[in-house]
């Protein structure tokens, strides 16, 4: 088990290198450059000044060389600083990361809390009214573009009904509130981004839970459990659920990339001061060090998430935890 964990952890390094290389190349393939964004049409900035800017940040060198230089700096954990405002990338990210983690962890929690019970009930009461309604819901969930849903949510709950704030996380006035009201305000700001983030994955995961529960229900040991005369609630909780959880945990790990990439979209739509929005702005500004910094951190978080789900898998499955198959 210790070797398994060590192996999995070491595997993260080559994956990070590969993914960061692809990101770096793709980013430089895009037409446009930082200097034109930063100085725009400013007639005061001459062509040679722009060339100097490129030279100063090694932007005139071939992409491969630039990547090499970037990796060299990264080894000493130096992510560089923003080409636009000269702030350290690490400082920018650490100031934004908590907001993203807050949003993502709550979304993940809600997805799990709602999708798994829906899936289990649909599977146990297959073809029931509930199951049919949920099938429709899942189709809608799959088919709805979530950025569009986000806009509809803003329109309906924000403007029409005026129930919920539509953007930001902690506006200026929260500084004047006591901690209870501040939490209340934060929750209100969280509702729409969380719903938008969770919606798509909710549909996918509930469908997946349903099929993995149905798969387990056809296993021989479930027949054994029924033949023992156990109550159906005992069969579901003690025998079916634990086995079905094995594959659900894996899917949870694999759904992390979708969540992280979704954060780029939803944080921008909801003006959420998180890492996704930072990344989005950096991309629009050709702010290469920031894009790479956000990319690497997002990749790292995803890989760690998948790693944790693997560990959780091993923890639930005694066949991995306790010795080898005989």
């Amino acid at each position, binding site marked *: 088990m210790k070797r398994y964990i060590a192996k999995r952890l070491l595997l993260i390094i080559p994956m990070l290198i590969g993914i960061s290389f692809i990101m770096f190349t793709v980013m430089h393939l895009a037409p446009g450059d930082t200097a034109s964004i930063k100085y725009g049409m400013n007639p005061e900035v001459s062509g040679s000044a722009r060339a100097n800017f490129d030279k100063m940040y090694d932007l005139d060198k071939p992409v491969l060389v630039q990547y090499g230089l970037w990796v060299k700096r990264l080894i000493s954990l130096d992510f560089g600083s923003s080409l636009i405002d000269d702030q350290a990338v690490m400082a920018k990210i650490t100031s934004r990361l908590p907001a993203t983690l807050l949003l993502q962890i709550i979304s993940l929690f809600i997805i799990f809390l709602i999708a798994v019970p829906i899936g289990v009930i649909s599977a146990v009461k297959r073809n029931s009214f509930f199951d049919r309604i949920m099938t429709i819901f899942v189709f809608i969930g799959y088919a709805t573009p979530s950025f569009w849903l986000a806009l509809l949510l803003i329109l309906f709950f924000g403007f029409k009904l005026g129930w919920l704030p539509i953007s930001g996380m902690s506006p200026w006035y929260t500084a004047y509130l006591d901690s209870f009201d501040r939490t209340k305000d934060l929750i209100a700001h969280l509702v729409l981004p969380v719903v938008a983030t969770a919606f798509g994955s909710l549909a996918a995961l509930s469908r997946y839970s349903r099929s993995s529960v149905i798969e387990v229900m056809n296993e021989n*040991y479930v*027949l054994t*459990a029924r033949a*023992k005369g156990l109550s159906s609630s005992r069969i579901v909780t003690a*025998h079916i659920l634990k086995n079905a959880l094995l594959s659900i945990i894996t899917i949870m790990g694999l759904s992390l990339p979708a969540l992280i990439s979704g954060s780029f979209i939803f944080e921008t739509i909801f003006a959420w001061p998180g890492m996704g929005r930072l990344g989005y702005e950096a991309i629009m500004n050709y702010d290469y060090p920031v894009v790479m910094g956000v990319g690497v951190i997002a990749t790292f978080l995803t890989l760690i998430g998948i790693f944790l789900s693997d560990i959780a898998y091993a923890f*639930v499955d*005694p066949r991995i935890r306790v010795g080898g198959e005989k």
Partner: protein
Amino acid sequence: MENILKIKDLTVTIGGKEVLSDVDLTLLPGKISAIVGESGSGKTMMSLAILDLLPDVAARISGEILFRGKNIFDMDNKEKQNMRGNSISMVFQEPFTALNPVMRVGEQITETIAAHKIISEEKIQGCLKGLLKMVKLSEDIASCYPHELSGGMRQRIMLAIALSCDPEILILDEPTTALDVSVQKEILDLVMGIQKERCFSILFITHDFSIVNMVADEVHVMKNGRVIEKGAKEIIFKSPENEYTRHLIDCIPKLGDERERLPESE
């Protein structure tokens, strides 16, 4: 003698195909009835039907299965639960898949007791020890997961589960088919030993006439979902009426002391 289980005109259709046709069977207390037939003859369907465990979406059932005079198809869920694992219990063919891979085998035994008897946790643990001893396993096996045990050990666990509530009928569905020959013999001897002591009835499902010869009092030969011949073992073995039965009996490997073993098992 009054019968303990009586199957009358049982017909089961699954997905438009008749897997059991007009099956009649009577099981007497303390007796061992064998159901013999090749795979696909409907043996397993019958054993599942007795516990009403056939897939309820697909199966259409007619006929009666009377346990102590009561039709099990008339029972409500509660009564059926009380019957399963308690009055009638079952050991399946595949010990490798019949146990829950993520639950310790001890708990898989005790949960059966807990489901049927209202007794203290302490007493349940006592029962567990007794059962493990009965199936000749050491006590510390209880904390193992199924994948840590061999096929024979897993089948002993299955047996311990099946016998945990002192059933009146034990259904053995090819209990030794998945095991190698030496382990087969151990398991059979074990079951027969316990049966002699406790005198429950056994419905022994197998394709192997040599096993029938060793264990059964009565024999039912099945083919294509029908019982084509039945009677006391001695009669069936001496003068099988049906061509198919004769064919199955001829399949017994006649090696070494097979002939000397025949009278011994009577």
